């Protein structure tokens, strides 16, 4: 009853197409993250689900029910705004009671529901506090509680953590995920922060320029990006991509990277797909999957920069077309100007068609 189906959804603002033909099925009780850079259409998608904006064409179904023409107050969606949109001129209690009060619920009924939701969200001691002087995690709970009290089948969250400082974000992420387990509602979570999407979502829908790029579990999206955009966008830093031509060698199919020489042989299942491809390909691997190897077994590149991020060290190799990043332990003995020979773990290699940007892989 609370699954969401987006069918051929299109949204245009004048000449600008914010969303190009989006198809997405979100299961009942699923936590789906819409992830993408700003302007990718993720917020537009969410606003259409909420009913704040009308689709130019296409359908939105909640379960079997077509939402066309259903006003936003009647859709049964809870919406948590980026800045929470707490009614600052009211107390926490008045905020929580707002929905039932507007629907004309009886006073005793309102008190009971507010009490229950406040208990669940540990807001009971704060009920009579003015909502304008609360810390941001309390605001988040009030915002969720204010929507949850209406028992919506669907929860929409619009970048709720983007105004929170980094240290606190981890706390809020955990809290949010726990709340979702409690409420068991379908949640759609819009974010540009891959860490939030990876840590909280059951599945991630990666979007760019109004086009849905890939839908999958966090690990699927991370391990098997469907195209070059997802490969670069997911991961920090993103996937290394080197342009080259497929070439046969006595050890199997390799990618000839021109001045960098040939790569180690491609894994069998990828090689089969690459053989069928036309033209140039992009040889990809995750910076975390690179290892230092002996001369002749990997790509030989000069170290251009060493970036220490605390737990690990990111080593920048090469420049321009041949730029590669590799993540090593902090004790890696590399300095600027030295030459490093790196090779990816075989299983982590991904190859993309340079012309279409799509992943080359069988099955």
């Amino acid at each position, binding site marked *: 009853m609370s699954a969401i189906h987006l069918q051929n959804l299109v949204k245009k603002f004048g000449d600008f197409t914010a969303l190009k033909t989006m198809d997405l099925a979100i299961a009942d009780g699923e936590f789906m993250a819409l992830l993408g850079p700003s302007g990718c259409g993720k917020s537009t998608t969410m606003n259409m689900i909420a009913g704040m904006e009308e689709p130019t064409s296409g359908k939105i179904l909640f379960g079997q029910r077509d939402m066309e023409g259903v006003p*936003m*107050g009647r859709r049964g*969606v*809870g919406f948590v705004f980026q800045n929470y*949109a707490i*009614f600052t*001129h009211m107390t926490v209690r008045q905020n929580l009671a707002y929905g039932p009060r*507007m*629907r004309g619920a009886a006073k005793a009924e309102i008190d009971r529901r507010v009490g229950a939701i406040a208990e669940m969200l540990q807001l009971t001691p704060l009920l009579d506090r003015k909502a*304008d002087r609360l810390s941001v995690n309390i605001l988040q709970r009030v915002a969720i509680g204010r929507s949850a009290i209406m028992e919506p089948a669907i929860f929409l969250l619009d970048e709720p953590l983007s105004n929170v400082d980094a240290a606190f974000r981890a706390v809020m992420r955990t809290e949010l995920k726990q709340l979702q387990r409690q409420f068991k509602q379908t949640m759609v979570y819009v974010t540009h922060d891959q860490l939030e999407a990876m840590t909280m979502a059951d599945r991630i829908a990666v979007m760019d320029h109004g086009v849905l790029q890939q839908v999958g579990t966090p690990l699927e999206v991370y391990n098997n990006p469907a195209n070059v955009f997802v490969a670069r966008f997911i991961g920090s830093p993103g996937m290394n991509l080197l342009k080259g031509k497929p070439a046969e060698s006595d050890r199997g199919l390799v990618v000839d990277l021109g001045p960098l020489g040939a790569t180690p042989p491609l894994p069998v299942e990828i090689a089969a797909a690459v053989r069928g491809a036309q033209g140039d390909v992009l040889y990809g691997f995750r910076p975390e999957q690179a290892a230092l190897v002996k001369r002749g077994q990997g790509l030989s590149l000069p170290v251009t920069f060493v970036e220490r991020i605390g737990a690990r060290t990111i080593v920048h190799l090469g420049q321009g077309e041949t730029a590669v990043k590799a993540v090593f332990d902090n004790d890696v003995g590399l300095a600027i100007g030295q030459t490093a020979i790196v090779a990816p773990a075989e299983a982590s290699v991904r190859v993309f068609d340079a012309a279409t940007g799509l992943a080359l892989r069988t099955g």
Partner: protein
Amino acid sequence: MSAVTATISEDVMKTVQAKPALRDEGAKLGFRLTLPAQILVLFIAVFPLLMQLYISLTDWSPLSGTGWWNAWSMWNNFANYTDLAVDARFWSALKRTAIVMIVCVPVEFLLGLALATLFADEFPGKRIFYSILLMPMMVVPAVAGYMFFMLFQSGGPVNDLLSAISGMPVTIAWLSDPTLALIAVMVADIWQWTPLMFLILLAGLVGVPEDQIKAATLLGANPWQRFVTIVLPKMKTIIIIALAIRVIENFKIFDTLYIMTGGGPGVATETISVYIYKLTTQDLIWGYVAAIALAILIVLSIAAVFAMKRMARAREVLA
């Protein structure tokens, strides 16, 4: 002046907390920097006020043949104030002023709010209507007075319009009937000052956070509920400011009214300002005028302090 003083003392307080040794230095610097402004304030506010207080305690008049600084020779032991307490014409003028205010300000407020609500949304020709709507505010009040003086003549356009509507000749003597004259004056005031109310309230309305309105909508509030529970509370400060401005301005209503009716017929439209004007220019009893003016200043100040306190509290709530 009080704002200036408050700022200085706050800064001094900070200095005290931060570095006690610098306290005197900071205070001295603050005093020196604000000295020109303080002297200016002394001349434009404090001096006239004291002069007025002085004259209000005497029978001095410009016809006394002596300078105002010699007014002490006509000292009358608060007689002006005791006269004021029993001056029926003063009290009826005060009452009339209050009536005009009680009618005009709410009407201007409600019209302004309705227009502001209308203009918060987009509609074709909005910019043109907006400009037209603001025009009355730009008209010099004296000109507006002449305009309405003409409109309300017994052979004037207002009666012509009423004749056209009713189908029989209407010749109401608007400005010579005590009640109708007051109504005509109030119509002019509402015509001229609703735009200001509209402008201030529109600014307030546009400032209401859109997210909160959307949130209320998503929680099932209908437009009226949203207006009452979100929009109005958020506009509280600006509403109080708008009302305070109009109450104070309306209390001083003079030019339009004086040109339309001269306070007449008889004293039927005589407000405080008109009464003071007549006493000043016709009766020339300046000691008494000074007493009235001071009494009103005190009343208005109390009202202003009250309004300011409300405002400060509202701002605290909304911050």
